[in-house]
């Protein structure tokens, strides 16, 4: 009786311990998430995803006529937005990614002359002021000057008193991640093109064709498993030492580029692909192979028509896992493709993937925490979706097998 009771207490103690540890893990995860969401969520917008990283500065002027009736806005504004009916422009005070005050253009009427200005430096170019840009400095034709530090309300008052613009300096939003998104897409594409066939056929060779119980096959398999545990920065060194010179010789690239990055990533994801495809080959019932042979199919036909087909879910899982790995990889890429943020992506030049983008903006003199958190949030969401898809596939797979 005593013994049983003691065992009971022990059980409960163990249970409480496990529960505490799990709760602790959950708490850390929640903290991380809430921190990132808190910092980054209000930056998440379509402009962030499609915008350029580098802000462009425009210098423009307007000396034409203004519409007598002004330009009416076709929408309502919130109370902190100021609207100049005379010019058809709405401004607002805002804080940029670096924490400085600036005057944000909220809206410009389609008929407003501001939507169709001339470039001061090049008469042939047009400059269109639109929402999302910021006002830096304006010299009006009555020689009043607008500075961004004076705020939106003062700027609108100056607009209402002026009949022309001698010189207006504006900048586009900037800090967009389009370039890094494109690079990430390129990396995923090239890496999968290289690693997928190699990985799938290696797995098929190891499991279907390789002689069993031969020491060198086991050495091969162990090496593949070992590769999974190698820190990725070491693969980055490999990329810098082997793939960058290689791609520099073969293409017009000089220094890190997307191809060398993809080759490095291919080495990183290869063991992942090989082991998960081999796992899926292991669960294909031997009955299928026997039935295929008994029907007079040869080894190649059996491999391509039955084995490959049955391992499709495994191949899909491997693909998703690899894509997740590619999106999240940063250390290796710092060497293999560089840390230069770009807006116009060229395959043979340096650029940054999303993860390296975070590194780059945090490594500068003024770390941009909010933007880093926003990009982290995007990465987290994508990886989460990929992981859930993998779970769904493996669940469906087990379900089908149980039914079959």
């Amino acid at each position: 009786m005593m013994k049983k009771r003691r065992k009971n207490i022990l059980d409960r103690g163990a249970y409480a311990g496990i529960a505490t540890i799990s709760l602790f893990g959950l708490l850390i995860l929640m903290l991380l998430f809430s921190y990132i969401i808190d910092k980054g969520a209000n930056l998440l917008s379509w402009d962030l995803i499609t915008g350029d990283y580098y802000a462009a500065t425009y210098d423009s002027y307007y000396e034409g006529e203004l519409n007598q009736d002004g330009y009416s806005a076709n929408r309502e504004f919130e109370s902190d937005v100021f609207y100049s009916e005379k010019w058809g422009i709405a401004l607002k005070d805002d804080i940029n990614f670096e924490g400085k005050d600036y005057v944000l253009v909220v809206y410009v009427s389609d008929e407003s002359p501001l939507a169709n200005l001339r470039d001061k430096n090049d008469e042939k170019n047009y400059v269109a002021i639109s929402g999302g840009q910021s006002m830096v400095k304006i010299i009006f034709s009555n020689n009043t000057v607008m500075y961004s530090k004076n705020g939106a309300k003062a700027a609108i008052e100056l607009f209402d008193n002026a009949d022309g613009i001698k010189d207006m300096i504006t900048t586009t939003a900037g800090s967009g991640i389009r370039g890094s998104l494109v690079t990430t897409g390129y990396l995923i594409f090239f890496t999968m093109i290289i690693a997928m066939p190699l990985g799938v056929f290696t797995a098929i060779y190891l499991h279907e064709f390789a002689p069993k119980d031969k020491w060198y096959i086991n050495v091969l398999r162990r090496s593949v498993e070992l590769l999974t545990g190698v820190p990725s920065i070491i693969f980055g060194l490999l990329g810098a030492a082997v793939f960058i010179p290689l791609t520099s010789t073969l293409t017009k690239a000089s220094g890190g580029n997307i191809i060398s990055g993809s080759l490095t990533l291919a080495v990183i994801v290869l063991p992942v692909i090989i082991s998960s495809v081999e796992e899926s080959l292991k669960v294909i019932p031997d009955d299928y192979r026997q039935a295929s042979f008994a029907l007079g199919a040869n080894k190649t036909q059996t491999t391509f028509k039955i084995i490959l087909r049955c391992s499709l879910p495994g191949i899909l899982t491997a693909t998703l896992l690899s894509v997740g790995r590619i999106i999240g990889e940063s250390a290796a890429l710092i060497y293999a493709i560089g840390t230069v943020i770009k807006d116009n992506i060229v395959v043979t030049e340096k650029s940054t993937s999303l993860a390296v983008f975070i590194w780059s903006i945090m490594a500068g003199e003024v770390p941009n925490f909010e933007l880093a958190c926003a990009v982290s949030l995007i990465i987290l969401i994508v990886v989460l979706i990929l992981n859930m898809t993998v779970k769904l596939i493996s669940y469906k797979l087990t379900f089908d097998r149980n039914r079959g």
Partner: protein
Amino acid sequence: MEQVFEIDELNLRYKDKQALINIKMDIEAKKITALIGPSGCGKSTLLRCLNRMNDLIDNCFIEGYVRYENNDIYTKNYDVIELRTKVGMVFQKPNPFPMSIFDNVAYGPRCQGIKGKKELQDIVKKALVNAALYDEVKDRLNDNALSLSGGQQQRLCIARTIAMEPEVILMDEPTSALDPIATAKIEELIVGLKDKYTIVIVTHNMQQAARVSDYTAFFLLGRLVEFGTTDQIFGQPKQKETEDYITGRFG
């Protein structure tokens, strides 16, 4: 009497276990030959020797002769693929491929390079009709084969084998995973197939052997104990061991 297979002094050894000892028997064309005996007696092993499925097993050593239509199938240059198209096999557990019913039956012909859609349709239909499955599945040939019942799956496997137009069909306990009604259907089918094909069937079920076969071979511990017509084996067994086995004294 025409012999399809002549087996002579066949010895088969797995790594350290002698599975078949000096087997000598002939298999007659267009008849059903049943191989019976307790588990581990070598009857399935012998069956697998007939289309060289034992090739797939590592550490399996074979001596002696198996002649198929007067050619030794264990000579080095013998075309195994060709042999397996002539000698089909149905397995113990229904094992249709995880693809559509049509693709299952068309698999063998496709592997032989038949591509014409019409031709394949004809082959599939004929095979399914011969396997007494066509009426049950004609409206859902594109459904996954795994959605069929166990008995239907096994008949699909038979149809798949028939589609190759073989001369011999080897059956390795084809009904052991099925219920009595599905079993009865398969047995009926097997007897019906006798006119066109030579059938060798391994079975645990002695009543099944008595019901369907023309010849019966009784195996014990890798040895062929007795081989004769089914009537003789079940009516007047010459060997004491055979009598003990078929009367249920062991096994």
